[in-house]
């Protein structure tokens, strides 16, 4: 079995709170990403998905503490914090941010901002960088004469494309996308998603898509992990998540998502709210809101367990399932 391109193991992130105390935002999550795979990290606000993604690139604020491993080609890039992770930024792992306006410097041209990482990482400079930047722009669907324009002259969709071009400047192997289409219209969203899928195929990129929007993940990703309260509740192929979920949160989350097709069916809401992350959590974090909670749930923390082919879930309802012998 080949080593996965990216392995996240037991990732934990704590934030110091100004009032003293700590917020345990990411509580020991693990997942893997193969080359060329499209993986979704799904969850609602506060579940820790964005923090987890930022940890992979080491883009955490000074009040954050990280534990666990993020292995790129088997090597733990978080071993010594900034020192070990920064060499991989942009040339191995790159990121597309939500609301591309935030990603651009408003006083520099878009073209120069795509060339900048190339020059910083010593990949190309001057006219060669310029030409590569123009090619990237064309590849993402922006005419290359726009390279000399400023970010504010671009529409929302174009800026997001430019942000993708900027992310690809150093030919990374992994692309992290944080809510890449949230602020965009549905037609532009379709264009961007189509672009991401074709880029992943052409450049054999691994794509990690972080979003709260389940249908996007259903359409674009092969596999996904559903996060809740800083933990992975379930991780499987996207087909299994929808058709054979093994965690009530996954099932309820899908049920709470309206769909064009399922007209008459009632859309359900999930009562309650996620637990506070600045206090220790006893038992299953989803238990207070779960419609199938039973005896062990309030007191025993469910562990992530294999329940099928590359399918894991952390729920006591699966306790009876015997785990296959580890390979």
């Amino acid at each position, binding site marked *: 079995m080949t080593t996965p391109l990216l392995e996240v193991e037991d990732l934990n992130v704590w934030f110091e709170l100004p009032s003293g105390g700590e917020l345990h935002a990411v509580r020991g999550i693990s997942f893997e990403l193969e080359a060329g795979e499209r993986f979704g990290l799904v969850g*609602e*606000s506060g579940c820790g998905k964005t923090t987890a993604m930022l940890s992979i690139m080491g883009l955490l604020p000074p009040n954050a503490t990280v534990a666990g491993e993020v292995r790129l080609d088997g090597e733990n890039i978080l071993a010594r914090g900034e020192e070990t992770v920064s060499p991989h930024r942009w040339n191995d792992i790159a990121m597309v941010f939500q609301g591309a306006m935030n990603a651009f410097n408003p006083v520099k041209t878009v073209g120069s901002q795509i060339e900048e990482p190339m020059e910083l990482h010593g990949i190309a400079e001057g006219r060669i960088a310029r030409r590569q930047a123009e090619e990237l722009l064309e590849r993402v669907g922006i005419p290359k004469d726009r390279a000399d324009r400023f970010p504010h002259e671009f*529409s929302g*969709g*174009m800026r997001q494309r430019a942000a993708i071009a900027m992310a690809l400047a150093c030919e990374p192997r992994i692309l992290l996308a944080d809510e890449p289409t949230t602020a965009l*219209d*549905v*037609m*532009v*969203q*379709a*264009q961007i*998603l*189509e672009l991401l899928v074709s880029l992943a195929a052409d450049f054999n990129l691994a794509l990690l898509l972080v979003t*709260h*929007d*389940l*249908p*996007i993940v*259903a*359409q*674009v990703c092969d596999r996904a992990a559903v996060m809740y309260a800083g933990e992975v509740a379930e991780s499987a192929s*996207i*087909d299994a998540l*929808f*058709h054979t979920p093994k965690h009530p949160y996954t099932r*309820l*989350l*899908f049920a*709470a*998502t*309206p*769909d*064009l*097709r*399922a*007209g008459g069916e*009632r*859309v*359900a*809401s*999930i*009562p309650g*709210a996620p637990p506070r992350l600045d206090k220790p959590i006893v038992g299953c974090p989803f238990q207070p809101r779960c419609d199938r909670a039973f005896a062990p749930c309030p007191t025993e923390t469910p562990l992530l367990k294999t329940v099928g082919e590359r399918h894991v879930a952390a729920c006591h309802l699966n306790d009876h399932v015997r785990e296959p012998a580890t390979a």
Partner: protein
Amino acid sequence: MSTNGSHSLLEVEDLVARYPVGRGVVGAVTRQPKLEVRAVDGVSFSLDRGEMLALVGESGCGKTSTAQSVLRLIETSGGSIRFDGQEISGLSTKELRPLRRRMQIVYQDPYESLDPRFRVGATIEEPLEVHKVGSRQERREAVKAALELAGLTPAELYIDRYPHELSGGQRQRVAIAATLVLGPELLVADEPVSMLDVSVRAGILSILDELRDKGLAVLMITHDLSTAAHYADRIAVMYLGRIVEEGPTREVIENPQHPYTRALLSVVPKRDPRERGTPQILRGETPNSIHIPPWCRFQPRCPMAIADCKTVDPELRRPAASTHPEHRAACIRV
């Protein structure tokens, strides 16, 4: 159109709302024509009591401007707005005041729509104070009733809280309660759940659903077709300031006729990964609403456009393939 022959609660006809846009010094000096954004460019629809109409479309289509024009929150340049039979498009602020009790709006951002310095009780009581309704005791009762209608029970638990102590979903419920306290007949909901988590949305929408069942007329603005498909009785799809297709929800969703509606529906992601389908992705983005051609405004991006499409500005009429008499689309090819 109303079922019993008398007027609908809300009747909008040929509504127009335009904003001037600066030409700049050079433009003014060279006498370029004054530019306008034609946000609402001839919109007509009606809404009955106990009915939910969803205005859907992408950004810039004019749905929010239409809703705000209907409530006279922005100025209109033409057309008629009749609320309960009365023409309100020309009324002054003072004349509109009593009408404000009967038509209310819920905004998109639950984190910004409540004054952070007002307790929940004060926010909900404010409409009663403004319109000088009821005694103090009666107001307290009305506030409690409104909170409970909005699903915040027991009301006593919430009355003295500040907005920052509440979650997004709770704040939106407070905003809804603040509209209900005056007993409106028309409620405009502008993207009421788009800033809330998915698991919380159905709770809010079900309140609107129930209110509709009790006879409230709801005009819902949303870009999310899936939400509209689940809750609205009728859908009107807007593009560049016009309604391009409208009709009963099931009819529009299952039998879309206008090419824009068809494309839009095909790119909405579905929950089921097995339903990936073939999205019809239009190229480019919605043009700005300053330079709208006198012919079909969708023609530049339309996959079905023919030569004739550049000669006429289509009106809403029943398409040949529609299966419902109230289904309309503005396209010469259907």
